[in-house]
């Protein structure tokens, strides 16, 4: 492989996180959309259900704080600033239970600001 091609690939690897961020704001081909409201100190809904292989976009809206919405086992997270809906496109889902949490400390009830993504078999 030519040195120039290697440099190009390295550059693409560096840009990958930016690409993921842009993908999080896109709805093209992103499948079903689920709205989630984030308010100190809960998410609504607290349970999200999907089926294996489904494409899912979570649309986060916060009313009061820059809450985080994180699904560590999917390596997916996004900040949800107040008054602005943001979209988190999830990777292809596999069966299982996924813990979701606010990962920006938002106050005394922060630890209770959790949700669960349930992915069932087809």
């Amino acid at each position, binding site marked *: 492989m030519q040195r120039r091609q290697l440099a190009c690939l390295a550059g693409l690897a560096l840009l990958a996180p930016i690409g993921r961020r842009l993908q999080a704001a896109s709805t093209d081909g992103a499948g079903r959309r689920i709205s989630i409201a984030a308010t100190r100190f809960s998410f609504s809904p607290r349970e999200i259900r999907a089926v294996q292989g489904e494409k899912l976009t979570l649309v986060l809206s916060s009313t009061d*704080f*820059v809450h985080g919405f*994180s699904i560590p*086992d999917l390596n997916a997270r996004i900040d949800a600033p107040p008054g602005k809906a943001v979209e988190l496109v999830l990777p292809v889902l596999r069966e299982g239970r996924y813990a979701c*949490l606010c990962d*920006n*400390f938002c*106050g*005394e009830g922060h630890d209770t600001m*959790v949700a669960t993504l349930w992915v069932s078999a087809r």
Partner: protein
Amino acid sequence: MEIHHPDRRDFVRLAGLGGLIVASALPGCAHLASPASGTKDFSFVQLSDVHWGYGNPKVNPEPRQSLMRAIAAVNALEVQPDFVVFTGDLTQTTDDPKLRRARLREVKEIASGLKATRVRFFAGEHDASLDRGEAYLEVFGGALNYTFDHNGVHFIVLDNTSQPAPVLGESQLDWLKTDLAGRPKDAPIVVLTHRPLFALYPQWDWATRDGAAAIEMLASHQNVTVFYGHIHHEHHHMTGHIGHHSAMSLMFPLSPVGTAPQKTQLPWDEAQPFKGLGWRTVDMQKGAARPLEHATA
């Protein structure tokens, strides 16, 4: 990155004054046994997660007692520590700025009852996240991250709590890089921080998002030990040759990973008051850090 999980069999249990003492023969500590030139043996005490102002009687019906007991026990040590360090979450968080300041001042006042002449503090997310450390700095002064040297050991206090996100941030990482640059590779270094620098369990917010960058910098030094709080129980972990040791809380214990479906404050045990609460002494011998756990009960 090589990771080793020492288990509890690695620890030697001894009975001691004021409760159980666990003497740790830990990977990440014993490796430091090679004499470090310019060091002089000493000890320090780690008190963590005081959460002053916490108010759930089902979890702790005596919220003012554990800190008092710990201070009395430290003051009763035959050999006084060279210093005491509070590793964050001095207070239970509140939206009320006046109450936050009042709680911080009260902790500072109570801590002045320690015999040890030097007492150091730094903030946890309960103290600093909601106002980016403003109240903490007003009461305690100084900086949110800082270094100090004691008897040949270099101490680095890292702040991963004064922003809402659990991060160190680029500027602090640059600061750390500058601090480490030119320091001898075998110099003993102790890092004090609140959250775990490694991804202990991000599902429960037990991680620092950019902590791996700090660990990578520290990994080029041979004698590094990290002491932290946040998770409210004793935990020991290795990233390569670096030992990471969390301390017990002085207000409420949290369930260890794998013992509960969600992060859980463990209820008060009437049969064993103060169970799961405690503090730590660290003996620094020839530059090697040897933690000893003390139960508050």
